[in-house]
């Protein structure tokens, strides 16, 4: 039974509000200290988990998908070179830059920054916040007790929504 439960837990990613609230605070603090523009936490499948800072002008869905794809590609390169994976990536542009860090095994932190700060500052504070976030995830995985749950009517409502959405 325990094994079955473990399989079910591993077959999807669930993020609860209380944990994400903690992470949001950490990201805000990291942005304040590093003077970076915004931070996106993304799961490895390319879905956005949370964001902080001035990201409203960005197409965050697309950035999340591309960041995950980019990270996956470098992981393959690392494997060929005999590394497990490259845990940090950095893309430099003329105005904006992106610093990517692996958080645990399933999420990535993308920090977008410009010339108001330096890659060194961003790297320093991103390392710190990454360790804190891993702790949050680890603690959360050990917790037991009541969980947030989806509405029991979700399934039928979703099926109706699909019918409505894909009307030819």
């Amino acid at each position, binding site marked *: 039974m325990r094994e079955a439960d473990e399989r079910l837990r591993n077959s999807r990613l669930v993020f609860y509000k209380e944990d994400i609230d903690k992470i949001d605070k950490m990201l805000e603090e990291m942005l304040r200290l590093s003077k970076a523009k915004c931070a996106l936490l993304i799961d490895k499948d390319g879905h956005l*988990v949370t964001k902080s800072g001035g990201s409203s002008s960005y197409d965050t869905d697309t950035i999340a998908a591309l960041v995950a794809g980019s990270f996956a590609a470098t992981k393959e390169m690392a494997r060929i070179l005999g590394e497990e994976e490259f845990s940090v990536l950095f893309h430099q542009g003329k105005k904006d830059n992106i610093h990517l860090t692996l958080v645990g095994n399933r999420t990535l932190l993308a920090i977008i920054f410009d010339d108001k700060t330096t890659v060194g500052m961003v790297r320093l504070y991103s390392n710190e916040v990454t360790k804190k976030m891993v702790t949050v995830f680890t603690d959360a995985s050990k917790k037991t007790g009541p969980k947030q749950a989806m509405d029991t009517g979700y399934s039928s409502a979703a099926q109706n929504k699909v019918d409505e959405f894909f009307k030819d």
Partner: protein
Amino acid sequence: MVQINFARREVNCKIVYYGPGLSGKTTNLEIVHQKAPTGSKGKMTSIATEGDRTLFFDFLPLDLGEVAGMRTKFQLYTVPGQVYYNSTRKLVLQGADGVVFVADSNPAKMVENLESLNNLVENMIAHGMDPFETPFVLQYNKRDLPGALSVDDLNTKMNKWKLPTYEAVAVKGEGVLATLKGISKLVLERLNRDYVKSATASTAPLIKGGTPSMGTPVSGGAAPAAPRPGQPQPAARPPQPVARPPQAQPAARAPQPAARPPQPAARPPQPQFTPQQRPAAPPPPAHAPPPPAPAKSEGCFGMILVAATTAMLAAACLVAAVLSGTN
């Protein structure tokens, strides 16, 4: 894998269009992009070669809107179909919650269809996805070609597992939405089935920050009438549903995937496949030609490295373009 985010009140699902080169995967996404209601679709992004062949993936986010308090989103991806790009194809497949296999109805393309289908199953198994359990549909595209194989022929050659099938002429927009609707419903069905189980079976939080894992088989899924390739036939297989619903039909016919029957509360127990029981590599199905020599796509590290580097650079360029476009 499905992401359920209670903080953002979102459910995110990933659907991947797979198939041989030039079978119409990108066209499917373009048509969905054209037809989806404004405001519900994001920008379609393609990482393609100068010749407009998919290099890494095409990506289209769709937002179904709020469902029972949760904003439900689908992210549609295509893979590069060319044999050469297997490493990138495999990367895109990772974490898929549903798969649409786009087959070309041209008889001359049947070998490529079967090779790609075998490759899909190999890559699914490599990612720990259970081809039995993963929502999976076939789209027979290019039905308007003169001399196109009949649906019966295509089913005989490609669909021994009785997957839901859809006929399409993607360039004209026919059958595209029906296919997407079909796979979307299967993905949501599975989400609901698994979620209800996890909610009743476990009291531990589901949040994961550390342990990587992908789609280990979960009981309770719909079992196809015949084994999919790469899956061993269980010795004591429970009786299959006697009447699998009729297969989904072309856009002209009544929409089907209502096709899959509502999951009965008392579903016959499904076989459990442990990783140990799985073959290391899927044996090719009896109807399929031998898979392409691995040397072509995977044997050469240099080629993979070049492909991965190119894909990563293209992705980085696109991120930069997205950023600069919004500044």
